[in-house]
């Protein structure tokens, strides 16, 4: 009895799923098309196709790509008219933009944008470095100031000074040669659970010093700086605050106060925090200054104000600045440069906060309403990109010895 019923139930569920999938997206091609196996850097570049595959009959589907390697093809192509060229933007996983903003850029430049998300910030940059000489894309977005020196040393970018370069606040221009152009920034700060402290009748923490006090024992979660980008940013904040010779003492005190170390942001924020609702009990977590605003925005429609607040004391936060650059050997360097300009345009800058939950670099870009809940650090920790690059490993290994071993 059961066996039969189980079988039919199974078939019914799968059939329903297939129907739902097909119904929802009639044009979706679930099975990778033949074109996908071809050089994806120029699968629909008709300007290249005739020379590359002269034997291909014109009746073949438009998605059939030339079989020859695109690297040997001339890169010249008409800027306007004809079918759009493809611009490949390599980025980390958090890249996001609004449909209409991207569509306007695509239309204006007769281009089709392809976003190649390549893992977290570190993995994506390392992939770009390994592919030096035959880049996976034209532009790379998502180098931050903790990785800046690694990127510049690897020499994978082609300098391009964007049209709006003069309008960029000087504090964010860390590469005067413009191999990399700043596009946005975000503060890594401690978030705390407002309801928790109200209920326990303890004042919310105000500074990094507070975390080592007995009243806050066993309350803090940080991410491991060796595996997590906010974890590294917070470690650097403590170095900015206490100095490269004293920060270890701070961490020893934090350890004595029972700090919990988590490997990644997802685990720390959801599974370990007292507001995540997933079994955690820690009311203080290293996250972003914009996280409270995101809590309201993604609150299931229920919250009128954030459940969390930021610890914004002096040097309590580290400011991560993100950069974009044209990859050396790009197939469409002209379009790549246009894309860099596009990322600094008003339309894109104003799109950044609602899509990527960081701040635009351009001062005149308007912020969305829900950003009234986001706070910025007045005095983020001051540590230079060069100092970070020179000491990153040393700092992390000293931290590991002091906190984990």
């Amino acid at each position, binding site marked *: 009895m059961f066996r039969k019923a189980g079988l039919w139930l199974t078939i019914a569920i799968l059939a329903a799923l297939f129907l739902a999938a097909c119904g929802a997206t009639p044009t979706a091609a679930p099975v990778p098309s033949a074109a996908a196996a071809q050089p994806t850097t120029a699968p629909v570049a008709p300007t290249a196709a005739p020379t590359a595959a002269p034997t291909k009959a014109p009746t073949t589907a438009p998605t059939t790509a030339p079989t020859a*390697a695109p690297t040997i093809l001339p890169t010249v192509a008409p800027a306007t008219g004809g079918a759009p060229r493809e611009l490949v933007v390599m980025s980390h996983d958090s890249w996001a933009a609004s449909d209409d903003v991207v569509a306007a850029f695509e239309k204006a430049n007769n281009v089709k944008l392809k976003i190649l998300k390549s893992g977290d910030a570190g993995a994506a940059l*390392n992939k770009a*470095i390994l592919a030096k000489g035959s880049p996976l894309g034209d532009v790379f977005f998502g180098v931050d100031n903790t990785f800046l020196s690694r990127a510049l040393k690897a020499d994978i970018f082609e300098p391009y000074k964007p049209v709006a370069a003069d309008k960029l606040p000087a504090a964010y221009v860390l590469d005067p040669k413009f191999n990399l152009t700043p596009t946005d920034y975000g503060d890594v700060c401690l978030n705390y659970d407002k309801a928790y402290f109200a209920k326990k009748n303890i004042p919310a923490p105000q500074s990094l010093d507070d975390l080592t006090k007995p009243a806050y024992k066993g309350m803090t979660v940080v991410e491991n700086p060796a595996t997590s980008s906010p974890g590294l940013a917070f470690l650097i904040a403590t170095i900015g605050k206490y100095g490269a010779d004293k920060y270890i003492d701070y961490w020893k005190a934090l350890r004595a106060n029972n700090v919990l170390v988590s490997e990644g942001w997802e685990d720390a924020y959801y599974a370990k925090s007292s507001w995540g609702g997933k079994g955690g*009990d820690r009311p203080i977590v290293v996250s972003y200054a914009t996280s409270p605003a995101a809590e309201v925005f993604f609150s299931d429609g229920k919250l009128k104000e954030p459940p969390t607040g930021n610890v914004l004391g002096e040097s309590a936060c580290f400011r991560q600045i993100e950069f974009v650059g044209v990859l050396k050997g790009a197939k469409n360097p002209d379009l790549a440069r246009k894309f860099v300009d596009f990322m600094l345009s008003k339309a894109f800058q104003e799109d950044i906060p609602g899509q990527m939950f960081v701040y635009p670099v351009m001062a005149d870009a308007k912020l969305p309403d829900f950003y009234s809940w986001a706070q910025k650090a007045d005095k983020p920790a001051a540590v230079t990109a060069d100092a970070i690059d020179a000491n990153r490993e040393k700092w992390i290994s000293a931290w590991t010895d002091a906190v984990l071993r």
Partner: protein
Amino acid sequence: MAAPLGWLLPGGFLLLFYFYPLAAIFQRSLAPDGAFDWDGVARVLATPYFANVLGFTVAQAALSTALTVLCGLPAAYVLSRWEFPGQALVRAVITVPFLLPTIVVALGFSIILGPAGWINTLLQQAFGLDEPPIKLLNTVWIIIVAHIYYNVSVVVRIVGNFWAHLDPQLESAAQMLGASRWRAFREVTLPLLAPALVAASLLVFVFDFTSFGVVLLLGGPRLATLEVEIYRQTVNLFDLPVAAVLSLVQIGVTFGLMALYARVQSALARPLRLRPQQITRRIPHTTGERAAIALTLGTLVVFVALPLVALAAQSVSTADGFGLRYYTELFVNRRNSVTYVPPIEAVWNSLAFAVLTIALALPLGTLSAQRLMQARWRWLDPVLMLPLATSAVTLGFGFILALGPPINLRSSAWLVPFAHALIAFPFVVRSVLPVLRSIRPNLREAARVLGASPAHAWRAVDLPIITRALVAGAVFTFTVSVGEFGATSLVGRPEMPTMPVAIFRLLGQPGALNSGQALALSTILVLVSISAIMLMERLRWEGADF
């Protein structure tokens, strides 16, 4: 089934998608200027920490494996020897953990075992405790529990499939001759099961040995395995020489184990009179038998299902109480994001990739197993298992270096099923090989004498017998493909996310709506997978059980 072709396909596949990329990344890491640079080796040797990591990796893997086999054996017995309603569902449920992304399992464990989780809250309220009594997270014990959680189905399937065909008369005969039940099991059944048992233990060991997500997330930062260290060295420190040396150690240890295993295996394997399952299975009659079965499986199912239930429960508890808000939200492109992909497409992508992976891995694995059985070179078997021992990030970076122009497969969507097949086909080999080896050669000889061509003999004799093992291989392949995250996130294309990738994207941002949707999608992943696994087991072709 010409012999050269039998090797050509799996050999060529391994060469292009495994050895070539691996050689490329090792060359780049260890000999960037052509000559071998000993710097990486020297630094690994000079750092005692890495020796500790290796020691911990081996120790936790050994303990995890032993406990997984102990937990899996009773379930394998019950599922293979007894017939009762709900069997297929039980099988499917215990296979599910295998395909869940670690972060999701970590959340499930935390909801139940976390300091403010279900069990601790319950105990605290019941006994008026100030402190949560259970503190398992970030200890080695949670790693071991999670390893059992993930791998128990490997034991159940590989050992169970073999057990299901053992002739029960052998054990009965021993008992008739005066042996106790236990003695009959120990001296008759256990030795016969040995090849499958060793195969399963070995797979589990390799999985525990190369464990990444479980150790990283549940074990916390104080505990690191080789695989975790390889990831840190590659991605965070970009110290490729050290990463390459550690990778080589990991591959070397696995190769050594597998080589040892190949020797043991050929010593253990013996041709058997395998019986159809219909004959070996019994329907429980007495209350005692029923109770024993219920207890064995009940414990396992509760253990496996509890975190899944926790996830599902969280996915329907919204700010307004019970509701399907997180499910309906899955279909809303809230921010009009250009990179937004409707989650139903992720379901569809995952299924399509899984089907392609099965289509690749089953023939590759079967051909390899077939060849292995006849090959005289003992080192070939361990070589086939190496993809399992290789870090996803090492291989992913190898793809970038090796598959660029002129091959240019680097950003092809095909890389996903290829990478999945690479990881999955050793499972097919391990499921099929013990069964193939136990087929009595005189069956094939009889077929040949009666005039069958080798291909016909294979179809008539081997295929029906290995069908069950093939289904097991297909199920493994499916779970590997659907659940794979590391390699997929490195080689996959963003517009074709799989379910784990989509879940991970949702969990990457704050807010109840994001985590709720991630849990909703995880629940869908579980339901789709259970259905697909049950369907696969039903689709065994005619005469599947001999």
